[in-house]
């Protein structure tokens, strides 16, 4: 191939098209119940008036995303009716005609264009050292490949089925705008994102503090601390009006109809239990496991009466509320406090010593990780909220690259239980190998990482896998990962491989 020059971006469409083709041949792969969830929402928004959207519960998969996403489904439903009108009937539960599958899959693939655009913008904002490198060694090429071909996003969106591509596209675009200094646009994009999927509340603290500190205060003192005199009310008002107007657009109709409490109860279903159906490898999963282990031990040692223990199992793979047997039960407020404590150092840091947009990005990742570790009813897919933005930092700094490799390998591996069918096994193994091999070799070349460094990273990431192979009924393994946050504030993060209890 006539090696494309670095300033010739023809390779970008090639990468984007390549992954899109792959997504297209995965159209007929396994899809999870999330497919039916979205079909149901298409039906609800198309066939019912707005006042019924958050009350409708014919199907168990009720609408539990904010109103802007409901409007998104509504607009999709207008295209859907040309594929198969039957999918828009609310009573047609678990309706999966070939046309329905084709439409839904294509809608994810097409809306990914937002993600592709966002990746392009991120690549343009990447810092790199000058010097002729061949195309494959440029940071922006590596970033594009790591984002566009991200294993987690591919299997969650295009096999398991969700719309994360376009949502993460908006997030990455917002980050890119902040990196480019266009803060109002970034704020607007994030507000829209929050009104599309409220899980991004996890990272709202980073946005809030960063914008307040670095945007509303226009100048800093020479030592980096706050210069209170440089506060700009105009900017604050601008930000406020953005948040309020988007919120009004989204929730306005429902507030007017007096449905706000109902909507909020749908958005924040605390009855769902501490842990999601599949094990998000976070602190509470470990907590549950310790509790279970202790109760089993207690029964064996005759310290406890079996009859008095709660019968249900947290590890059963179902979404329910449970009480712990031995350790104190955990309520939503406790998880909130733990989360806030875990992100406090990072957030304080960007207030006291802001490091510009990159410091904000780092804080964002810490918030995502902290919320993942300590949050209530966390999905394992939420790890993507840390992995994707972190990719930008990974191609700019050596240390970040090492941590990134560990984070992605473990994080992606923890997504394996999402695809449990035999037919999809080769796909997830091959794609995981593809992504892991690429990320390791490209970052190694970029930063001249040593073999020793890589072996340690890889071992730390795969140790749970090895342990889980060795111990049948035992725990998958416990991995302690030192946090990457530079200012000597170390958080011990506990990662858990898939357990076989």
């Amino acid at each position, binding site marked *: *191939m*006539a*090696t494309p020059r670095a300033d010739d971006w*023809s390779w970008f469409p*090639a990468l984007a*098209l*390549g992954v899109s*083709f*792959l997504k*297209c*041949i*995965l*159209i*007929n*792969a396994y899809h999870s119940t999330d497919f039916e969830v979205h079909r149901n929402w298409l039906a609800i928004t198309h066939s019912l008036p707005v006042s019924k959207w958050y009350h409708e519960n014919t199907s168990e998969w009720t609408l539990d995303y904010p109103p802007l996403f409901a409007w998104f489904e509504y607009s999709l439903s207008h295209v859907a009716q040309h594929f198969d009108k039957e999918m828009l009937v609310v009573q047609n539960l678990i309706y999966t005609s070939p046309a329905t599958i*084709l439409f839904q899959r294509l809608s994810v693939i097409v809306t990914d264009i937002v993600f592709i655009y966002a990746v392009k913008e991120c690549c343009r904002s990447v810092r790199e050292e000058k010097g002729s490198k061949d195309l*494959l*060694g440029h940071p922006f090429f590596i970033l594009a490949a790591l984002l566009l071909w991200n294993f987690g996003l591919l299997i969650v969106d295009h096999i398991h089925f969700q719309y994360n591509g376009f949502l993460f596209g908006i997030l990455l675009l917002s980050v890119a705008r902040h990196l480019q200094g266009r803060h109002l646009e970034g704020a607007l994009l994030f507000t829209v994102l929050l009104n599309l999927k409220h899980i991004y509340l996890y990272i709202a603290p980073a946005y809030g503090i960063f914008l307040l500190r670095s945007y509303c205060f226009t100048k800093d003192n020479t030592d980096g601390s706050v210069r209170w005199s440089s506060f700009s009310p105009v900017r604050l008002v601008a930000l406020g009006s953005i948040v309020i107007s988007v919120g009004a657009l989204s929730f306005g109709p429902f507030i007017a109809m007096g449905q706000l409490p109902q909507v909020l109860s749908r958005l924040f279903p605390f009855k769902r239990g501490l842990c999601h159906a599949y094990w998000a490898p976070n602190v509470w999963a470990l907590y549950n496991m310790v509790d279970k282990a202790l109760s089993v031990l207690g029964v064996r040692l005759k310290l406890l009466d079996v009859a008095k223990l709660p019968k249900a199992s947290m590890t059963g793979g179902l979404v329910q509320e449970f009480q712990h047997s031995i350790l104190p039960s955990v309520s939503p407020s406790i998880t909130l406090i733990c989360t806030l404590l875990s992100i406090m150092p990072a957030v304080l840091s960007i207030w006291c010593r802001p490091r510009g947009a990159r410091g904000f990005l780092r804080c964002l990742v810490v918030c995502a990780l902290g919320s993942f570790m300590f949050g209530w009813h966390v999905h394992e897919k939420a790890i993507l909220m840390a992995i994707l933005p972190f990719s930008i930092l990974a191609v700019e700094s050596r240390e970040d690259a090492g941590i990134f490799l560990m984070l992605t390998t473990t994080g992606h591996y923890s997504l394996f239980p999402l695809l449990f069918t*035999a*037919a*999809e096994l*080769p*796909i997830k193994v*091959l*794609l995981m*190998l*593809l992504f892991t*091999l*690429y990320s390791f*070799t*490209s970052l190694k*070349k970029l930063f001249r990482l040593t073999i020793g460094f890589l072996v340690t990273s890889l071992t730390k990431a795969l140790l749970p896998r090895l342990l889980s192979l060795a111990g049948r009924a035992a725990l998958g393994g416990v991995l302690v990962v030192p946090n990457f946050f530079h200012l000597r504030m170390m958080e011990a993060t506990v990662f858990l491989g898939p357990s076989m209890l």
Partner: protein
Amino acid sequence: MENWSLVSICVLFGLTARWAVSLNSYSGAGKPPMFGDYEAQRHWQEVTYNLPVHEWYFNTTDNNLNYWGLDYPPLTAYHSLLCAHDHGFDFCWVLVADLLIYIPAVVLYSFYLSEGSNKKKVCTVLCILLYPGLILIDYGHFQYNSISLGLALWGVVVLGLGWDVLGSLAFVLSLNYKQMELYHSLPFFCYLLGKCFKQGLAGRGLFLLVKIAVTVLVTFALCWLPFLSDPGQILQVVHRLFPVGRGLFEDKVANTWCSLNVLIKIKTILSTDTQLYFSLTTTLLAILPSSIKLLMKPTLWQFKLALVNSSLAFFLFSFQVHEKSILLPALPVCLLLNDLPLPAIWFLQASTFSMLPLFLKDGLLVPYVVTSLAFLFFSIYLLSAFEHCSEDKLRLGCLRHLPSLIPGSFYFSITAMAGLSFMSVALAPPDQLPDLFPLLVSVFSYLHFLGLLLYFNIVQIAEPLQSVRKNQKKSN
């Protein structure tokens, strides 16, 4: 990035694409009573596992040959026996075969026998692995072509590296897996014979000839060992492999006879024997120039071209050709991707298109569209196909004005293929002509194949016997 990591990434991507295609429908899915090729493979596992060897090819109470009787040579039967022992997920076996046989051959070919920078070699690996025809037939329709084609490719690679005896061994194994490899046999024969002549029949040449002959005979004997005890066995197997009673062609296939049949109903006018002689004569005439040239100049470049010309000629003029046999010329054309990118891409796309009616029957429309688009896009982009359109690059010394027409014709042709594909899916044929679209597809493909046969023949014949020109790179 180092070569090994780039190549591994290409291979992993190729494997992923293959497996993803297998997640779609397959031949005969849910279509009783005969089902399709998937059922055929499963049946052969049954037959080889449960019955003794001497009953495999015979019509007995336990083995009804009308229900997917075994009609491939013994190696296929042994392979079915092997698969029968672990009747897990059959598509796994295709993937394993690809990984062990076909893909290593492709990688070795690209790195040792093709020219250009390392980047170009990696791109060649990727483009060959993305060829839609083989992916769709092996993983969609369900067959094991990657074994026979892979072994044949091993033969080419090993011969290219200079190990003649091993090369002939690989090819004989390939032949004993699928008898269609006979399409490739003449070039192998002429190349090896030509090499023997070049080394002098009075000395080393004769020795080489004897070595090769012995290898071939011994390999054949080993493969057919269980059947050698009884001449009746051998005859029956041959009878199953070459069903001459079945007529000039079946269904719609993009060759001369089927296309001619549109104008003159030769199937009804001529008797079966006349048809046989007619096809035999035309085939021989078509392969003669290429084979003689190869005999006179046994180089790797001539060998590759002869493989294309010979198998394509067989496809176009031979007896009882099936549309899947286009894979036989497609393999050597893949080897030309590096040297003559645009004609090769054109042929490979046309070959995929020619099998469209088969894919539609198997419910493989989406994989067909996606893999074709992916192949076209990546091969044109990575191999810079349109930059290699000058008359020198196309080696069309005598036809000077032609190259300027090529890009336009290429676009027109691809658009027409897309249009015909769309029509085959979206429109219903008129009642008087129920086979209209398959016929249009096969005739359109036939015209391409004929034109490309002429082109590749010109390229092969026009090359001078002694490499006079200094800038002539292909002269090993």
